[in-house]
């Protein structure tokens, strides 16, 4: 695959190194001259000095034959423009953008960016999922399926502790994929009983999320 990465910060750097090791053709674009020098010393021709937002630069590095364009600069607006230009002007199949502000996810997806990664959101999810909160924490979005993977650690006082899954009104659109209890993996069935501190993983679409919360007695 030919992959173009915009933004030679730490993320761009490690992405480039890893993808090169995996055998892909990678081109990293960095616009700052001193940062470019540092990167060039180690990565050689895999890094080019230029601004990935500029059409001229992208044309020079053969953006129209790129399979993926990844934008990982420190600014959401730059990442948006890099991906939009790649998609609209160069018809690149897959665009991935880093999001610093998780609230920008909606506009990015609306404008046709294929995949967004928000380190803020990812860490937030990790922090929340560890807390004994009673809300489903979104872990990951499966864009092609229109589904989200969500996690809930059943709190002690939960109204469904001791109930069997068949007695809980699960929405049809929801799939309880896995329960982890005391480090054991349990494939849930209708007879599975819910215990306190169970780690429940479910696949759910946007509409089903509320229903699921209601079923588990976690709707505020």
């Amino acid at each position: 695959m030919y992959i173009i990465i915009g933004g030679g910060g730490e993320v761009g750097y490690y992405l480039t190194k890893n993808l090169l090791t995996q055998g892909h053709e990678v081109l990293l674009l960095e616009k700052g001259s001193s940062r470019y020098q540092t990167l060039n010393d180690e990565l050689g021709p895999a890094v080019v000095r230029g601004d990935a937002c500029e059409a001229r630069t992208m044309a020079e590095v053969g953006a129209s034959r790129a399979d993926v364009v990844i934008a990982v600069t420190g600014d959401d607006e730059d990442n948006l423009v890099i991906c939009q230009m790649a998609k609209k002007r160069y018809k690149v199949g897959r665009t991935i953008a880093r999001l610093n502000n998780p609230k920008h996810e909606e506009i990015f997806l609306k404008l046709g960016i294929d995949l967004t990664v928000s380190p803020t959101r990812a860490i937030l999810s990790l922090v929340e999922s560890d807390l004994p909160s009673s809300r489903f924490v979104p872990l990951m979005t499966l864009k092609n399926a229109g589904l989200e993977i969500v996690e809930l650690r059943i709190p002690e006082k939960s109204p469904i502790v001791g109930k069997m899954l068949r007695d809980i009104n699960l929405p049809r659109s929801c799939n309880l994929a896995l329960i982890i209890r005391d480090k054991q993996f349990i494939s849930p069935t209708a007879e599975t009983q819910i215990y306190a501190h169970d780690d429940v993983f479910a696949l759910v679409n946007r509409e089903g999320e509320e229903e699921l919360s209601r079923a588990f007695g976690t709707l505020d």
Partner: protein
Amino acid sequence: MKIVILGCGRVGSTLANMLDQAGHTVSVIDFSSEAFQRLSPDFGGETIPGNGVDEEVLIRAGIKEADAFAAVTNGDNRNIMASQIAKEIFKVKKVMCRIYDPIREETYRELGMETICPTKVGAQMFFDELIVLK
């Protein structure tokens, strides 16, 4: 007309003053509150310090009731992103965006964005004056 202007630089502040004088309801957003000093002392509109690509800031500036939005910061990409947020998320009817880079401006104009490219306009004006010289 209610208008939200993003960017209180030379163009932004001049535009804000003009619209305010013409009797419209103006709010101006800028990252730096010092920029608001460029506004006329009898400016009757609102000033909102903050990041113009942050939806909460835009909402505070009244974008939900706005008839028009103009993005005139000195950053092309910020203008592009803010304009698209105004159009796609807040459905503002009239959205105008300043883009200095001619190629970027062309791409976004083709996508249906209303753009102004001072680079091309300026170069054209100089050209028109100089070309008549022998």
